[in-house]
């Protein structure tokens, strides 16, 4: 009992982690059931292709986002160049566009008679009838330009937090800006960079929407096929385990290389960075480098969607539409608040006692690499069981039935979001808490503060940037989320993402553009607020 109270934060952290891990464990339990011959069938026919494709997607998306995200963050943090103030904000915007929307837009623009096909034919004086975007290259393109903001955001945050002293010392030692970049800034910002890339990789692995639309045969599609098309939950469970083992393997490699090094700053040496002015020519080059991802990842799709929407504006019912916007907004807001609360408690628990809480926290963040639909069913199984239990108890004692209070309400859906997106909020909270020197905690403790006071008065305040970042990323991601919402939503709850998806699947991109634009606009509000806050 005494030990529990002494480490109460750590134990609370473990309990919350366990709640989140539960659905994952349930899926894994299907391993022990005997299945039919689906597994052999998949292994003999398509599994190798699926695995190779996923691997290619993973590697290239990771490299691409790492380069774009880190480079643009470095330029924006270290230098002054034309329009930098705007670029700094614009670079985040692709986050507002769902990756599947990027797939819709570019496959259409590059299709027969599409704008880009015509443009490219004009530029190169050759007849491009169509460029096949429905391929693994298309997939890599989509993932790089829709996911690089994860790396950018975390990298930027890390570079800003890096003490100016390190850079100054490096400068005095005669290092050029380039060598400072890869000898000082990157090694120091590694947890953040790796954190960002890890998110990209998990998102890529869990994706279904893009792969499905572009017809790429990925591992996740294999899970879907086994479970939803061939009805074999056991094989789907086995495939999910392989996915999880793979991700855990990557995570532990990173942990291994990070070793015992700590990345906290020394408070006394904390000094603000000094911006470097670039001369006009190099300044414009920096601008161009930063503008490319913005144009590809945001401006082109945004303009195309507006263009589509103009032709279909008459098809919407204003009242229903505002309902749709409102319910999507509320859902995302509530989900992101819940996620951030869990994340703060879990990460703080790890901070107070790394040894016991850390492994559970790691496991809890695995949910992000699980495809949404798999997580949804993992949530559905225990909750439906609980619901049926509640009903049979209430029937026998009170002779009334409550209906499905867990799976028939927002509860199941929010739980699924928690399982899926906790990693996102944990990552940003962690990368901001890790920067807070432990010495501050000790000082507060010596001055008589309790752990909860240290959290609210010290860590949460200094790490506020990371916390709001985590809140925002989850908000935006929930707004875009598809499979879990589809499986778990209660009667009467409709979201913009579902609406857009239903039109898109029906090959009516014009109608899909309006809810997609609404998603983007709703995302822009918190993104704007955030950009003011973290400046």
């Amino acid at each position, binding site marked *: 009992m005494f030990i529990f109270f002494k480490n109460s934060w750590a134990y609370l952290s473990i309990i919350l982690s366990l709640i989140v891990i539960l659905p994952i464990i349930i899926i894994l339990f299907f391993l022990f059931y005997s299945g039919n011959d689906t597994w052999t*069938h*998949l292994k003999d*026919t*398509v599994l190798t292709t699926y695995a190779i494709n996923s691997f290619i997607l993973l590697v290239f998306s990771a490299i691409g986002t790492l380069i774009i995200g880190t480079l643009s963050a470095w330029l924006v943090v270290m230098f002054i160049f034309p329009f930098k103030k705007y670029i700094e904000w614009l670079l985040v915007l692709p986050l507002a566009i769902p990756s599947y929307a990027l797939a819709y837009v570019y*496959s259409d623009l590059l*299709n*027969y*008679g599409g704008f880009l096909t015509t443009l490219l034919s004009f530029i190169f004086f050759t007849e491009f*009838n*169509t460029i*096949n975007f*429905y*391929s693994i290259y298309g997939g890599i393109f989509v993932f790089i330009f829709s996911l690089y903001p994860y790396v950018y955001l975390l990298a930027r945050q890390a570079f800003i937090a890096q003490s100016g002293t390190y850079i100054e010392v490096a400068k005095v030692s005669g290092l050029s800006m380039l060598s400072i970049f890869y000898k000082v800034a990157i090694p120091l910002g590694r947890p953040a960079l790796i954190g960002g890339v890890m998110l990209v990789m998990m998102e890529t692995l869990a994706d279904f929407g893009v792969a*499905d639309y*572009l*017809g790429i*045969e990925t591992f996740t599609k294999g899970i*879907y*096929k086994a*479970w*939803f*098309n*061939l*009805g074999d939950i056991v094989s789907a469970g086995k495939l999910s385990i392989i996915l999880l083992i793979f991700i855990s393997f990557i995570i532990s490699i990173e942990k291994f290389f990070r070793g015992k090094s700590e990345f906290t700053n020394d408070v006394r040496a904390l000094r603000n960075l000094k911006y470097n002015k670039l001369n006009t020519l190099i300044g414009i080059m920096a601008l161009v480098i930063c503008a490319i991802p913005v144009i590809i990842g945001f401006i082109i799709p945004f303009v195309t969607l507006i263009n589509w929407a103009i032709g279909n504006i008459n098809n919407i019912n204003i009242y229903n539409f505002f309902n749709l916007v409102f319910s999507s907004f*509320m859902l995302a807001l*509530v989900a992101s608040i*819940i996620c951030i609360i869990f994340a703060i408690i879990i990460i703080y628990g790890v901070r107070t006692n790394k040894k016991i809480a850390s492994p559970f926290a790691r496991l809890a963040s695995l949910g992000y690499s699980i495809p949404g*639909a798999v997580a949804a*069913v993992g949530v*559905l199984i225990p909750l*439906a069981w609980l*619901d*049926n239990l509640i*009903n049979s108890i209430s029937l026998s004692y009170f002779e009334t*039935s409550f*209906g*499905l*209070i867990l*799976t*028939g*309400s*927002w*509860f199941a859906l*929010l739980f699924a979001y928690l399982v899926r997106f906790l990693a996102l909020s944990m990552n940003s909270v962690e990368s901001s808490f890790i920067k807070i020197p432990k010495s501050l905690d000790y000082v507060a403790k010596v001055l008589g503060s309790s752990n909860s006071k240290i959290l609210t008065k010290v860590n949460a305040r200094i790490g506020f940037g990371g916390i709001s970042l985590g809140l925002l990323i989850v908000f935006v991601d929930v707004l875009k989320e598809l*499979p879990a919402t*589809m*499986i*778990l*939503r*209660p*009667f*009467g709850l*409709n979201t913009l993402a579902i*609406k857009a998806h*239903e*039109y898109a*699947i*029906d*090959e*009516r991109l014009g109608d899909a553009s309006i809810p997609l634009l609404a998603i983007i606009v709703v995302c822009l509000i918190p993104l704007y607020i955030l950009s003011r806050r973290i400046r």
Partner: protein
Amino acid sequence: MKYINIFLIIILSIFYTAKCWSNQVNLYSARKEHLIKPLIDLFEYETGIKVNLVTAKSSQLHQRILREGKNSPADVLLTSDAGNLWKATDENFFQPIYSNLLDKRIKPKFRDENNLWFGLSLRARIIVYSLDRVKKEELKGYEHLSNPIFKNRILIRSSSNVYNQSLIAHMISKYGDEKAELWAKGLVNNFARDPAGGDRDQIKAIAAGIGDIAVVNSYYIVNMLNSDNKSIFNSLGIYFPSDKKMGTHFNISGAGLLINAPNPDNGKKLIEFLTSDKAQLIYAHNNFEYPVIDNIEIPENLKMLGKYEEDSTNIYEYGKLSFKAIKLADRVGWK
């Protein structure tokens, strides 16, 4: 204090379930909302019964019903494709409906043999071809598509699409396992490119000169004819595949009453309503689908596609072959 208020609001909103209406029916629909909404509105208007709707993919609804078990709130499952309807019957989702009206209106071919589900609308899986590069006489039914004369000329989407799974299942039921597999192998050899994109993309690919013949769904053709892309069809022909052995293949959408339905009477009413002339007209004129009832007037743009010969096989007979079809496609390398 203010935090407690916010907290309470959040908690309340989490557990908020749909309002309890005295007269309602709960519908799980694999048909998208924009397709089913006009029908629901009319039903609500005519009967005063409130319809609570959840839409998702068939397989997702299937999992949901499976997990919710005997407390599932769903009354009616509306889903598309023979394979999905069979999966639902295989898991004992449905209870039989005894309705003279339904028996009379819907042909045995378009409903389950034990009255567990009833077909509501049809989409034809047909061929669009380049008028310049294909002679009409060359086209002779589905089976002929695997003939080497079509090498590098055929466009069709991925086998992960249910329309293709259903076509393969139909071929298996017609020709048997081995011959159907040979057919699929031949077809894959004739592909102009790796399957990519949706049905509209196959049609655009003919226009772009990638292939000559596309196997697509009538629904998308009519939708394209109604859009800016109409001009593409100036150089394209439309053909309803049929030969001596097999007529044109149709994808069906259908509905069944769930075994634990809390409002079975309303569920039955809803299904009966969907087969009424009014509802069938909406299917034909709003959604451009073929009605399951014979004497319904179809719109001009559906008529324009041409006349056809339906295949005679009962749909439930090949619904059960859908697993086989998926595996067959994997074996022959149909992506």
